């Protein structure tokens, strides 16, 4: 992974309220991400866009920001592909 990279994803559903875990869709890849750093209650997160860094949602963003960031990342090519590949291998519990 690239330590500086934060990638946008959309919260599909909250899986574990106690441990702050949610299922998030990142470019078609669905993985568990920790949402415990967000200031929102977990029940209001479904459908929200978030910026994800090393398996944690760092902040909520709007759709416009998410799309722009995704395009920037896609233009990075190999680095973004590698990040997605590592996300795919992630199995946060």
């Amino acid at each position, binding site marked *: *992974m*690239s*330590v*500086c*990279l*934060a990638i946008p994803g959309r919260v599909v559903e909250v899986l574990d309220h106690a*441990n*702050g875990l949610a299922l998030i869709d990142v470019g078609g890849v669905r993985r568990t991400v*920790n949402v*415990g*750093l*967000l*200031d929102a209650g977990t029940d209001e997160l479904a459908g929200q866009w978030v*910026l994800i*860094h*090393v*398996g*944690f949602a*760092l*902040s909520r*963003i*709007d*759709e*416009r*920001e*998410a*799309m*722009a*960031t*995704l*395009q*920037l990342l896609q*233009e*990075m090519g190999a*680095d973004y592909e*590698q990040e997605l590949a*590592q*996300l795919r*291998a*992630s*199995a*946060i*519990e």
Partner: protein
Amino acid sequence: MRFADEFRDAALGRALCSEIRALVEPGRTYKLMEVCGGHTHSIYRYGIDGLLGDAVELVHGPGCPVCVLPMGRVDDGIALAGRPEVIFSCFGDVLRVPGSHGSLLDARARGADVRVVYSPLDALAIARQNPEREVVFFAIGFETTAPSTALTLKRAKAEGIANFSCLCNHVTIVPPLRALLDSPDLRLDGFIGPGHVSTVVGARPFQFIPAEYGRPLVISGFEPLDVLQSIHMLLAQLADGRCEVENQYSRVVAWDGNPRALEAMAEVFELREHFEWRGLGFISQSALKLSGAYAELDAERRYEIPGVSVADPKACQCGEVLKGVIKPWECKVFGTACTPERPIGTCMVSPEGACAAYYSYGRYARAGAHEPEVAV
């Protein structure tokens, strides 16, 4: 991708560039440091440094966590990875960082159980699945990443996962900036402030830069137009005789940062008295270690760690690159003995490192002009 267009509008970019040029005081030059490796990457990727005219120079800063990792800490990690009971886990970027006797990748080739994880929570999952082994997570990163390690350690403690520990190399962004401002090597006129770090720490910690050093800082997004707009805001401040912290990236960065992340960090970590940075030397109160409450999860307390400080290879000029004193292509080994495939220095390892970013993108723009100079 209709939403992205407004961040990419070529006409807007050209207009910003001509406004930037119009703000330049005749005869004056401007040295602006982009602190974050993500910005360095954008600048080379989109050739932003070539759009600004001769008066504005962009200087790359120390904000790439892989780049500032000293050899001694890599050696400490390799020593732990060599223990038969240990599963050593780290981010992929760390694998190829050279220590004094090779990298973690070399250690893996010698039989060490070194595993790449996407998240510290993946390392914790490995610990749950392998109760008979000891899982060490090699934590690196600035305040962007430290809260994730903090939450992982909180979870490990709450669940009582005793076979998990953390070798903590987290660093903080303000002390190296202060060290750079105190350094006589470099006269900077302003800073393009880090985007993701500021998501966590907010804008407030940077206020000492205008207050004590009289330099402006603009927190910036990563789109090419974000970076151009931030440069414009810096030059406008300088032209107006203003000097403050401004937030160009307010659509993501809150002025006070992320309070939950800061709370988690305050609970789990405390400041080290000093920490060694590659190329920058020892900087006081510049890094984090596990607090007393998390001592049982601290790999430095659980294991004997060599803890030896190792000088960088003589040929390597990462220190000068990290301080912005030289450009990547001015290093003697750039692109010849030191490449992303076989890096000598850390700046060539991470895609956010100035040398790797320049190697991937910038050198084509300068091909011919500089390539003969980098031959060793």
